[in-house]
């Protein structure tokens, strides 16, 4: 076996030392984190606004200063030098420490917010208390653990977004895309919902209560969007609330399919989405850690599609649970809703099986048939069983297990906590039902693909290595085949790192998009015809 062995010697390693600037920058950033950590140990800071500002500014400043020193004295261009030699970015000691620390933070955040200082009745203490002034300034309410998280999340996207902008400053696609995720996180995910909460109950809304709504977050990512309390919230807020409900439905059935048709799922996953935003900025140093083996791909396909099925069942059950039976009150009853869902799913299934079947491998077809039969059987079950239990379970049980398993453990604890171990898109790749649905659309009827430039590929493997979604881009490129994969989020890094300029994200014609000619130009055309005869 040829293995690339790592020397244990103290000399003989490439330079991974920090420069003086980087050391000071690390110190500044760590000071900011230390303030938060001290707050976590219930040190009460006298002037919270001041200390919170100091903390956030030094975290941001430290990160920005560090990256300025790392990139600004180098010529613009791909600079991945030493990525695999650094402990933090190559699953080494510091990588594991970072992974464990992040995971620990997520566990506390999701399940033990009291340790962060959340007080149910009365004033917050600790870290959450530290964030109270900012929260009050924005929404008028005291902070929650989610506000703390949201603030740190936004700070991370902004600070590391600046780093990303410098690292890829030669690449306009990457720059514009990063501005976009920074904007959507700051405005749509962070500030606007807080301001909307401030409008709660005002006369403007006739005394209704507008749910906290991150408008760019659509079902099934916000799997709770059609739960009873939210629907009530929407409907009690007059026209605005009703418009938001309609918008929520439109995002699923109109807006996202249209945009995905035109631009691929990237319009969402790497231009708008907050999860993607964090992955692309703070997660960028870990993008090469995603597993590219065929085995990982097989696991990915089964897990992510199972999550979609799960979320569909769960949402159906939840909506079902608060609908009535009386047709005279409202046209949408339990039965009509379930029939509607069954018809919709059948229509999608039949359409795919009739027109797009040849685009799937056998196991995908079996999987689709299996899932379809299960869903329809479960829906059918309703008509033979009494009320209360839909799909053999109580809707509450389904909802709770989804939000625990997928909503917290998967998307937070594993998805982000494992960045330094499994790569930065673990959640997007294996768990996000939204990514799966958009991916389905992308695979079947989008104009988007990654075009391969004729015969210019040298199979170097930069594209595959730096694909955060674990796609073996090279496998396609070296055959001269267009890359149409449902998991591709269109981050554009494969194209950026390609030393021969072979890859291009492109919205082209639908015809010949999948499994295109596979022409390796340069050879005699007749010969290539022969080679292509399978």
């Amino acid at each position, binding site marked *: *076996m*040829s293995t*690339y062995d790592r020397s244990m010697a103290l*000399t*003989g*390693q*490439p*330079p991974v030392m920090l420069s003086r600037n980087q050391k000071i920058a690390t110190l500044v950033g760590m000071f900011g984190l230390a303030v938060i950590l001290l707050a976590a140990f219930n040190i009460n800071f006298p002037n919270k606004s001041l200390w919170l500002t100091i903390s956030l500014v030094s975290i941001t400043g430290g990160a920005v200063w560090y990256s300025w020193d790392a990139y600004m004295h180098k*010529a*613009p*261009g791909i600079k*991945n*030098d*030493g*990525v*695999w*030699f650094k402990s933090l970015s190559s699953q080494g000691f510091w990588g594991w420490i970072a992974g464990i620390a992040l995971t620990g933070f997520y566990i506390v955040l999701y399940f033990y917010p009291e340790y962060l200082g959340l007080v149910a009745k009365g004033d917050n203490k600790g870290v959450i208390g530290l964030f109270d002034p900012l929260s009050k300034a924005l929404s008028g309410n005291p902070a929650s653990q989610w506000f703390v998280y949201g603030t740190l999340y936004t700070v991370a996207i902004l600070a590391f977004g600046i780093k990303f902008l410098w690292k890829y400053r*030669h*690449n*306009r*696609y990457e720059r*514009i895309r990063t501005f976009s995720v920074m904007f959507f996180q700051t405005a749509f995910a962070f500030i606007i919902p807080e301001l909307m909460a401030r409008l709660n109950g005002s006369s403007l809304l006739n005394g209704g209560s507008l749910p906290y709504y991150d408008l760019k977050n659509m079902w099934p990512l916000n799997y709770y969007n059609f739960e009873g309390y939210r629907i009530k919230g929407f409907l009690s807020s007059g026209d605005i609330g009703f418009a938001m409900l309609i918008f929520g439905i439109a995002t699923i059935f109109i807006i996202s399919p249209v945009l995905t048709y035109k631009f691929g799922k990237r319009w969402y996953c790497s231009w708008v989405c907050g999860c993607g935003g964090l992955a692309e900025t703070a997660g960028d140093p870990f993008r*090469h850690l995603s597993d590219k083996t065929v085995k990982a791909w097989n696991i990915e396909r089964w897990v992510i599609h199972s999550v979609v099925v799960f979320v569909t069942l769960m949402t159906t059950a939840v909506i079902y649970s608060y609908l009535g039976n009386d047709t005279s009150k409202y046209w949408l009853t339990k039965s009509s809703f379930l029939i509607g869902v069954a018809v919709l799913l059948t229509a999608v299934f039949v359409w795919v099986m009739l027109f797009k079947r040849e685009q799937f491998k056998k196991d995908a077809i079996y999987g689709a048939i299996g899932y379809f039969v299960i869903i329809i059987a479960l829906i059918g079950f309703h008509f033979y069983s009494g009320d209360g239990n839909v799909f053999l379970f109580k809707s509450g049980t389904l909802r709770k297990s989804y939000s625990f398993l997928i909503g917290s453990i998967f998307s937070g604890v594993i998805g982000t906590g494992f960045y330094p171990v499994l790569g930065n898109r673990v959640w997007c790749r294996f768990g996000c039902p939204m990514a799966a649905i958009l991916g389905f659309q992308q695979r079947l009827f989008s104009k988007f693909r990654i075009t391969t*430039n*004729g*015969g*210019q590929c*040298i*199979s*170097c*493997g*930069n594209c595959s*290595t730096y694909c955060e979604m674990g796609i073996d881009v*090279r*496998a396609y490129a*070296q055959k001269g085949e267009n890359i149409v994969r449902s998991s591709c989020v269109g981050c*554009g890094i494969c*194209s*950026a*790192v390609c*030393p*021969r*300029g072979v890859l*291009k*994200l492109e919205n*082209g*014609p639908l*015809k*010949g998009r999948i499994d295109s000619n596979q*022409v*390796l*130009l*340069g*050879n*005699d*055309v007749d*010969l290539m015809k*022969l*080679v292509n005869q*399978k």
Partner: protein
Amino acid sequence: MENIVIIGNGIAGVTAARHIRKLSDKRIIIISAETDYFFSRTALMYVYMGHMKFEHIQPYENWFWEKNGIELVRGYVTHVDTPNKQVLVDGSRAFHYHKLIIATGSKPNKFGWPGQDLHGVQGLYSKQDLDLLETNAPNKEACKRAVIVGGGLIGIELAEMLRSRDIPVTFLVRETSFWNGVLPEGESQLINEHIREHHIDLQLATNLVEIIPDENGKVKAVTTDKGDTIACDMVGLTAGVTPNIDFLKASGIEFGRGVKVNRYLETNVADVYAIGDCAEQHEAIGNRRPIEAVWYTGRMMGETVAQTICGNRIEYRPGHWFNSAKFLDIEYQTYGWVFSERGKKEFEQHFHWRDDKENLCVTIAFHKETKQFLGINTFGIRMRHEIFDRWLTQQRDVEYVMEHLADANFDPEFYANYEHKIVSKFNSDFGKSIKSKKKSIKRIFQIS
């Protein structure tokens, strides 16, 4: 069942094996002394630079070979016994073949420089060379300066590699300007400047005289024909490559610099073929050289020979020439033929454009009289292979190319476009009034 033995697991040999497998169920044995599994040679530099680990530059997972019935043998072929149709590995194991494909690639050139075999002196071609580089130049403390001799693609890659570990580099180039035997002057100039931007001590028109050892037989310094002595801990010899065919001496297979092959890639011995870097055409094909040590030609020959071996005897007919490389941060692509000042044909006229701010330039070659488009070199702008292949086949004239240049652009979305600048320079150079057309998806993808 036929035994196909392939010597060499580079791009040529492996492509041949894959295509033979596609077309038949013959027994396929690949013998290599270099590595267990196929890897992308052109990507070796990224392993040293820390962009990838060695396993990342292996295009196929390790189970691929067994699954596809391709047997891999690790060993050095010492003799090819053509009368008995056997190859001898490591002087002991014998493999019988029905058809033999020689795909052993190249080795770095050494021109008899004094001291060329000292410790710390090496080429850069094989996996072993990479391992050696890790020993010779692990970091800037162990290697206080490196000297690179030879101004080609491997030389600049080696310089980039060493610079990624902050090792000071002196680059000795025999020519008066970098790679100007291949590149037209303006482009060569651009690269000279870019090399210096990366703090590489580029010494043009300078030859290596001697490599001086220290008391341990390790390199201490080099002297140049300019009279300089340059202290260094490592010397990279990158003055081109030669076919790696020494083991064929007693085999009866005819060779010149490389293994002589006809257009069917057959050698003078029946059932023995040669492909890739080590194959030499009796007569050059078109403007190509008889030996082409290029990734893409290795791949094309592999495809061709697989057809022949599987019963569809077919001539090796490479289409329009193309190639690409990356000079530090500048990507380079070429389609068709653009010759340097030295190699220029008498009918060949050049149009050269260089951006006044960015590291971008384009040279287009065309026929003086007929205005037929002959080829393009592009630096810092990606171009679409398919389009130029089409235009070359259709024998478009240079004005058509100018007009439709936007169709050929392959840069990522939102990149700045330079077609207008290029065309207006063309217009002023040649007194034309061509207007560049907007990019058309219909034309690019030939949708009517």
